[in-house]
C-alpha cells in the first residue's frame, strides 16, 4: 500500500510548549485516517504542519511525495484542508467563492468553472450558487468549505471537525462524501471529537495527545478492551444454573450476569456461540436475543487517552 503521509520525529515547539512531540506517522493512499485527541492536544498544529502552513521545529515529513520545508508550495497544491472555521467570503456568492479558490489553485478558467459546478452540485448547493454565502445555514457553509477544500482534487484531504455543529442531514452528506473520497482512492486525514463518526468512517485511528499514543484499526482497539464478547438475554431472566452451564462450555474464558443478560467472553465466538445456545436450550432456558457485544470507541478513548497527561 502506497504511503502518502510519512513523518519522522516531527516536532513543533512554541517557546516552552511542545505542541507536537516527535510524531511518526505512515498514512496510506485511499485510507480514512482518524486523528483523535482532547482539546489542546495539538491536532490543529499537526494539521498545519502537514499542510505546510507552519514549519516544524525538528523532524521530517513527506506529504504526497513532497518534502516538507523544501517543496511546500507543491504540498499545498497536493492537499486540501477544511479548517475549524469555514472561513468563506460571506458577501460573495457560493459560485464566486469556489471559482476564486480554484483560480488560486492554478486551475485554468474552464476547469475552475467545471470543478465549481461539480462540487456545488455534489453538495446540493447548485440551485443557490448565486446567493451570498452570508444567507447560508451553518451546514451549508460547512459543505461549501468542504467543496473548497476538495475542488482541486487533492491527493490528501485534511478535515478538522467536519461535522461539528451540523444537523444529522448535513452530517450524513459529509460522511457520504468522505466515503466517496475513499472510494476514489483519496486519503482523508480526519481530526474529530466525534468518536462514533471515527468508528464508522476510519480505517485506522491514531490517539494523540502531543504525541501519538496508539494507532490501530477501530475493531482491534475494541477487541483489546473487552475481548470478543457475546450477550445472551434470557426470558424471564437468567438463573444461576444457566450461568453455570455457560461457564462449562469449552472455549468460554469468562461469563457473568449483567442487567438481565449473561455476558460471555470467548476466544472465538463463531465456534463457541452455537455450543452456548445448545447448552442453554438443553437446560430449559428461553433465549430472547444473542448479540455481539461491541465496546464503544469512547470507552477505548477514555481508557487510552485520558490517563495520559
Amino acid at each position: 500500500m502506497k504511503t502518502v503521509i510519512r513523518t519522522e520525529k516531527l516536532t513543533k515547539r512554541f517557546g516552552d510548549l511542545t505542541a507536537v512531540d516527535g510524531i511518526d506517522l505512515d498514512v496510506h493512499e485511499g485510507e480514512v485516517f482518524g486523528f483523535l485527541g482532547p482539546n489542546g492536544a495539538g491536532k490543529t498544529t499537526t494539521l498545519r504542519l502537514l499542510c505546510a502552513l507552519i514549519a516544524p521545529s525538528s523532524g521530517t515529513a513527506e506529504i504526497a511525495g513532497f518534502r516538507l520545508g523544501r517543496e511546500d508550495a507543491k504540498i499545498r497544491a497536493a492537499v486540501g484542508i477544511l479548517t475549524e472555521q469555514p472561513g468563506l467570503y460571506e458577501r460573495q456568492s457560493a459560485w464566486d467563492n469556489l471559482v476564486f479558490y480554484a483560480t488560486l489553485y492554478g486551475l485554468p478558467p474552464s476547469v475552475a468553472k467545471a470543478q465549481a459546478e461539480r462540487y456545488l452540485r455534489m453538495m446540493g448547493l447548485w440551485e443557490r450558487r448565486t446567493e451570498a454565502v452570508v444567507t447560508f445555514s451553518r451546514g451549508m457553509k460547512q459543505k461549501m468549505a468542504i467543496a473548497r477544500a476538495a475542488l482541486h482534487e487533492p491527493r490528501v484531504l485534511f478535515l478538522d471537525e467536519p461535522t461539528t455543529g451540523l444537523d444529522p442531514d448535513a452530517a450524513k452528506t459529509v460522511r457520504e462524501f468522505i466515503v466517496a473520497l475513499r472510494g476514489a482512492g483519496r486519503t482523508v486525514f480526519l481530526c474529530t471529537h466525534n468518536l462514533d463518526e471515527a468508528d464508522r468512517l476510519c480505517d485506522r485511528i491514531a490517539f494523540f495527545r502531543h504525541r501519538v499514543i496508539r494507532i490501530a484499526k477501530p475493531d482491534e482497539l475494541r477487541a483489546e478492551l473487552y475481548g470478543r464478547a457475546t450477550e445472551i438475554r434470557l426470558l424471564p431472566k437468567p438463573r444461576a444454573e444457566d450461568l453455570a452451564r455457560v461457564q462449562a462450555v469449552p472455549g468460554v474464558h469468562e461469563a457473568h450476569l449483567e442487567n438481565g443478560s449473561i455476558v460471555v467472553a470467548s476466544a472465538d465466538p463463531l465456534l463457541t456461540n452455537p455450543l452456548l445456545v445448545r447448552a442453554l436450550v438443553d437446560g430449559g432456558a428461553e433465549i430472547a436475543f444473542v448479540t455481539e457485544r461491541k465496546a464503544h470507541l469512547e470507552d477505548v478513548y477514555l481508557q487510552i487517552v485520558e490517563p495520559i497527561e
Partner: protein
Amino acid sequence: MTVLAMSPARPTLVRAVCVREWREALGNKLLVGMTLLPPVVILVAGIGAVAAAAVNPPSDRDVQALYASAPAVAGLDPKDAVQGFIATYFLILFMLIPTVVPLTMAIYSVIGEKASRTLEPLLATPVGVGDLLFAKSLASTIPSVIVTWAAYGIYLATVIAIGSHAAVNAVTAPRWILAIIVLVPLLTLLSVNLGILISTRVNDVRVAQQIGGLVVVPVVGLGIAQVTGRVVLDNGAFFEMTIVLIVLDLAVFWLARLAFQRENILVRWR
C-alpha cells in the same frame, strides 16, 4: 478525476485577488462611503473656494498679506492672485486623498479577513505570501489612485473653466501634474502598506485608522509650511519628495512582508 493544482501565475493571482477585494469592498457601504467622502469634500471645497474668490474681491489687507507670504503671485491682479493661491493650496490637499482613502481600504482588507477567519484557507493555497501581499497592496492602491486622479481631473477641468489665468497656470503647472502622476501612487502605496502593517497588530478598524491617520501629518505640515511661505515647493523639492517616498515605500513594504508570514499570521496574529 485528476486535476493538477499548481501555483497560479502572478498576473492571474493579482487579478483574482483584486476582483475579489473590489467585490467585497463594493458590498460594504461604509467602506464605499469612507472611500468617496474625502475626495468629494476636497473637490467640492476646492471648486467652491476658487469660484468664491472669483466673485468676492479680497480686502487690501488680505492682498498685502498674500503678496508677502506667496511671492509667486506678487504683482498680480488681487482676484487673480487669490484664485491662484487657493488653486495651489487645494492641490496640496489633493495629496491627502492618497493617504486617507487607501489606508481605510487596506485596513478593511486585512482586519476583515482576520475577523472572518478567511486567511487560513487562503494561506493553504499554493500561492506565495509575498505575491499575496503584493496583490492585496495593488487591490487597495489601484482604486485609490484612480479616485485621486479622477478628482484631480474634475478639479483641473473646473478651474480651467471658471478660474483666473493665475489659477489655471497653477493647476496646469507641469511639476504639479507630474506630482499628481508620480507622488500620488507613491503616497498611496506607502499608506496601503502602512495600513497592512498596522492591521497585523490590531483587530479594531477604528484603532488601526487612528494609528494610520498619523501619515497625513507630514502632508498637512507641508501644506501649512507652503501657505505660510516657509517652504517653496519647487522642482527640487518635488524630486526630493519622490526619492524619500520611494525609500519609504520599499522600507514599509519590506516590514509588511516580514509581518505577513504564514506562521506569523496563523499562530501570532490575534
